[in-house]
């Protein structure tokens, strides 16, 4: 499939409140094209809640329920239930939540919705910070990253949300990135057709949050995949398939670009290189990525 096959319909209208170069809106445009008109979005507190613009106008052309930060999964369960009762279960119910509302404050509600088998798609757009409130650390923030609450660089590694979601044994869990729109589109299309809970995590590189120029958003996502920092995969009926370059990495057919190449381009990692190289922390970051692929090989090889 090619970009030509993607529909022309736009459900996110131009002139929103998003930052120039915002990855969330890039992701949303692709995701909404895959979902189509018959979609209800559930959006907790996150950047998108602001991107919608303000009352009485909205930049969204699908019905959208804003909800409290921790409540997405439960709210989706309620909507799905109501639609079923009203005989309108041909409507996609989709949570679009940031990493804060997924990894941290929202994890309980998401877990509950998965355990109950709610027929919906949970999309986590992950920019690895609490972006909306001004770039504070989240459970998804990478090791060594500057945030306003990890000023010297985060000392902990991020949660393995992929493993947590897979442990719920839901029919479909995928990892995507806005820099690969055909892949993201296909994943959403596939999820749409499956009954039960589906999870898609989309890497969304954030210019103000990661400290890189606003024209390099797509590049940053691509490099994350090429260095192996971010895997693209689908876990369907408990069978793992890696996609594109990630498959080549998994099969040992592609030599990952140095993780450093990705770190160096982002101001949030600049203290690892200036005033002098922090070899120890760079090595720890690289080991984290190596270990992740090692775990993948052990579990899915």
């Amino acid at each position, binding site marked *: 499939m*090619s*970009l*030509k096959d*993607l529909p*022309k319909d*736009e459900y*996110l*209208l*131009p*002139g*929103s*409140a*998003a930052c*120039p*170069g*915002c*990855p969330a*809106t*890039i992701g949303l*445009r*692709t995701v909404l094209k895959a979902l189509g008109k018959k979609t209800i979005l559930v959006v907790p507190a996150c950047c998108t809640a602001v991107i*919608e*613009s*303000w*009352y*009485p*106008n*909205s*930049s*969204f*052309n699908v019905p959208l329920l804003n909800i409290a930060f921790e409540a997405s999964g439960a709210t989706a369960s309620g909507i799905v239930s109501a639609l079923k009762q009203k005989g309108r279960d041909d409507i996609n119910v989709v949570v679009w939540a940031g990493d804060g509302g997924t990894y941290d404050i929202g994890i309980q509600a998401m877990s509950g919705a998965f355990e109950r088998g709610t027929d919906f798609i949970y999309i986590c757009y992950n920019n690895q910070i609490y972006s909306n409130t001004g770039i504070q650390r989240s459970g998804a923030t990478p090791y060594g990253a500057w945030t306003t609450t990890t000023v010297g660089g985060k000392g902990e590694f991020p949660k393995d949300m992929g493993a947590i979601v897979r442990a719920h044994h839901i029919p479909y869990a995928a990892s995507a990135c806005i820099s690969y*729109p055909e892949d993201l589109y296909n994943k959403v299309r596939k999820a749409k057709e499956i009954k039960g809970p589906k999870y898609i995590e989309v890497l969304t590189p954030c210019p103000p949050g990661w400290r890189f*120029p*606003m*024209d*390099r*958003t*797509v*590049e940053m996502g691509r490099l994350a995949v090429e260095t192996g920092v971010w895997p693209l995969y689908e876990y369907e009926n408990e069978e793992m398939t890696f996609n594109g370059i990630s498959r080549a990495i998994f099969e040992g057919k592609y030599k990952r670009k140095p993780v450093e190449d990705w770190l160096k381009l982002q101001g949030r990692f600049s203290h690892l290189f200036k005033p002098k190289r922090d070899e120890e922390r760079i090595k720890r970051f690289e080991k984290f990525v190596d270990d992740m692929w090692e775990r993948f090989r052990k579990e899915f090889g």
Partner: protein
Amino acid sequence: MKKYDVVTTLSYPKTGAMGKTGTWRIFRPILNKDKCVKCLRCWIFCPEGAIIRKEDDSVEIDYNYCKGCGICARECKVKVITMEREE
């Protein structure tokens, strides 16, 4: 578009909900249409949806809303979009 009477925070879809966000620009993308290969990368990667896809898959930039991020210039397959400073 049906508007509801009940008074609660209900908002309705609007293009340019934040106004003409083209005013945010410092640089504007200039496309050399003749050299465009209609790969549609600029169209799909525009965060704003400000690159309009025409019937024949050629593209046109909507300067009313383009915020000038420069992603289109960066991702253009054949590098025929340049960023020029706004007057």
